[in-house]
């Protein structure tokens, strides 16, 4: 018999002591695990399954884009500046032949070198430009890239193009990758911190609890976004990792509150006392015995946090405190849109807003469905 002593006693506690060995396999066949029951409930919820499908589509696309399978060349200039979506048709058909965008004022198209010659000046950047030209293989002006030799740019594009002629569809896809990955990573970090602190505070009580409660009081006294701004001001270097850290380190309070309450409730339950009786260590009781029993709370919180952090990342990046300039996220895309609107181009705003609203709604509905499936007693 290679079974550890504790397990025999546990199974004896669970079942009647006499038939324990006989009954056990039968029970295992009929009794479903909590996750199987929850999955069954979720499957019967059409709204939940529908939103799960949408979230899954987003996640698959994001993984594909992170692996470089799609949207890899999102920053290639496919089309003319602000090319309209294909289904809208093009008003720029005539200009397609000479490749010069009519939306640019004439002064700007002239600027490609001719002005400098007019004044008899040497362009100090000419060597650099020549080097760039030899790299790209054609001798157009790489800075403006609108001279006649440029490969023909499309006048229309699926969902349109941005100021630089990049595909909005690919750009929003790439932005989704950044925003959602930041949201998920920050949610994992925040949920982890909240769970560990909540477990310690709830399980140990006493001065440990008092100390962590004090920390909680301090963090909740400062409005969340203000705290995030303060940290963003202090950390000078921008980056995806920094923003994950900021959001994760500040966003743990909600999870902590719930997990602490759960641990307070569970630590006096009989199964935990039984675990103590068979000599399970504190750490084992906290994380092997109690943790699986509160995991449904953690899962729901995690799902909710992802939505919150996606929204927070969008606002931070919009303000310029989030992702660096060479990374595209939903926030940095939205940052471009007020000026585009004034010029009369709304496709980027629409596409990005729609993608964001779809994911956020689906995620929120999935969270509700998860909550219903995992804990039917809750409303």
């Amino acid at each position, binding site marked *: 018999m290679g079974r550890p002593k504790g397990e025999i006693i546990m199974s004896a506690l669970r079942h009647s002591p006499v038939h324990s060995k006989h009954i056990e396999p039968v029970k295992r066949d009929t009794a479903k695990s909590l996750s199987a029951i929850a999955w069954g409930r979720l499957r019967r919820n059409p709204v939940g399954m529908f939103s799960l499908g949408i979230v899954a589509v987003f996640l698959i696309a994001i993984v594909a884009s992170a692996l470089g399978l799609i949207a890899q060349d999102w920053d290639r200039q496919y089309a003319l500046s602000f090319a309209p979506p294909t289904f809208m048709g093009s008003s720029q058909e005539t200009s397609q032949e000479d490749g010069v965008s009519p939306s640019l004022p004439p002064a700007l198209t002239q600027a490609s070198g001719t002005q400098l010659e007019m004044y008899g000046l040497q362009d100090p950047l000419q060597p650099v430009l020549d080097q760039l030209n030899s790299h790209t293989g054609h001798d157009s002006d790489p800075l403006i890239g609108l001279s006649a030799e440029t490969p023909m740019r499309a006048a229309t594009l699926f969902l349109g193009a941005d100021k630089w002629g990049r595909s909005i569809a690919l750009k929003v896809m790439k932005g989704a990758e950044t925003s959602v990955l930041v949201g998920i990573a920050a949610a994992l970090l925040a949920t982890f911190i909240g769970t560990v602190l909540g477990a310690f505070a709830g399980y140990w009580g006493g001065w440990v609890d008092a100390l962590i409660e004090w920390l909680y009081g301090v963090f909740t006294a*400062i*409005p969340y976004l203000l705290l995030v*701004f303060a940290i963003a001001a202090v950390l000078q270097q921008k980056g995806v990792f920094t923003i994950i850290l900021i959001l994760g380190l500040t966003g743990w309070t909600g999870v902590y509150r719930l997990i602490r309450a759960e641990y307070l409730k569970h630590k006096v339950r009989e199964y935990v006392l039984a675990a103590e009786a068979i000599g399970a260590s504190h750490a084992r009781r906290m994380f092997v015995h109690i943790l699986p029993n509160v995991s449904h709370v953690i899962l729901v919180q995690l799902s909710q946090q992802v939505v919150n952090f996606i929204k927070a990342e969008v606002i931070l990046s919009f303000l310029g405190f989030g992702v660096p300039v060479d990374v595209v996220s939903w926030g940095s895309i939205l940052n471009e849109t*007020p000026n585009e609107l004034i010029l009369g181009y709304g496709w980027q705003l629409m596409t990005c807003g729609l993608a964001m*609203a779809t994911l956020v709604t689906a995620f929120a509905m999935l969270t509700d469905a998860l909550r219903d499936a995992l804990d039917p007693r809750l409303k």
Partner: protein
Amino acid sequence: MAAYLIKRLLQMIPTLLGVILLVFLLFNWVGGDPAYVLAGKFSNPQDIANIRRQLGVDQPLFIQFGIFLRQVLTFDYGLSWSTQEPVSHIFLTRLGPSIALLLPMLILETLIGVAIALAVAYVRDSWIDRSLTLTTTAAMSISLLIYIIVGQYFFAFVLGWFPVQGWANHGESWVRYAVLPILLGLAVSIAPAIRLYRTFVLEEMGQDYVRTARAKGLSEMRVMLVHVLRNASIPIITTVLGSLPGLLIGAFLLERFFSIPGIGREVIMAVERSDFPVIKAITVSVAMATMVFNLLADLAYQWVDPRVKLS
């Protein structure tokens, strides 16, 4: 009552000390040496040493903490690094516009939210209720950034009904400038408010006293507006009071888009300019306001519902 008040005020001290410590560690320890930021790109060691002495950052950390503590207690945070304006003056002058924007917004949100919540809770599970739930879900899913961007573009730029940007502190021009930001703020906040207040109202409608009131033959109007509303107002008042300090910061996007010289916009600008004294002052002050308003919310709770025992 007085004993309770004193106890609560005493309990605030460790939390406030914690906030001060957190802000201090963030800016004086994590943040690194501000002298390099202030001295600019063309500096020499002498300048940097001078700046360090002026700011007191050449002192050990605990003395710096003492300086910061004194700043908090005397509400004198020194001068702004970027404008050389006294920080307390910045804070006090920016408070007015923020409140002039937020107070009408909060009052309207509460009145409209409660009215709609009462109405839909009364016809609960009807198609009106369900379609409103659906509408609020959809409304909440759209980023507030998009509300503001599109609202400002459409109502101010395209239709020209309102000025695109600007602010006046009082009078007719205040109305002219404030209406659009307030409406857009309402558009963002009304959906979650309705949902929250609806659950409060529904909770009360299931109580026995409602059945008793109906059994007495009271009109539905009276049952809803006197009996239910009065009891539902308890959690509503606490929510509204508790949300007030957070709103000061929450309206930063409105303030930024419409160039309203309020607290939120000041924070954003201070972060952009690395103006640490301003951020420190606003963070600590808003945290204090949050704690005070939480206490006020608890007191209001007892005032509305005398059954609640303060302990």
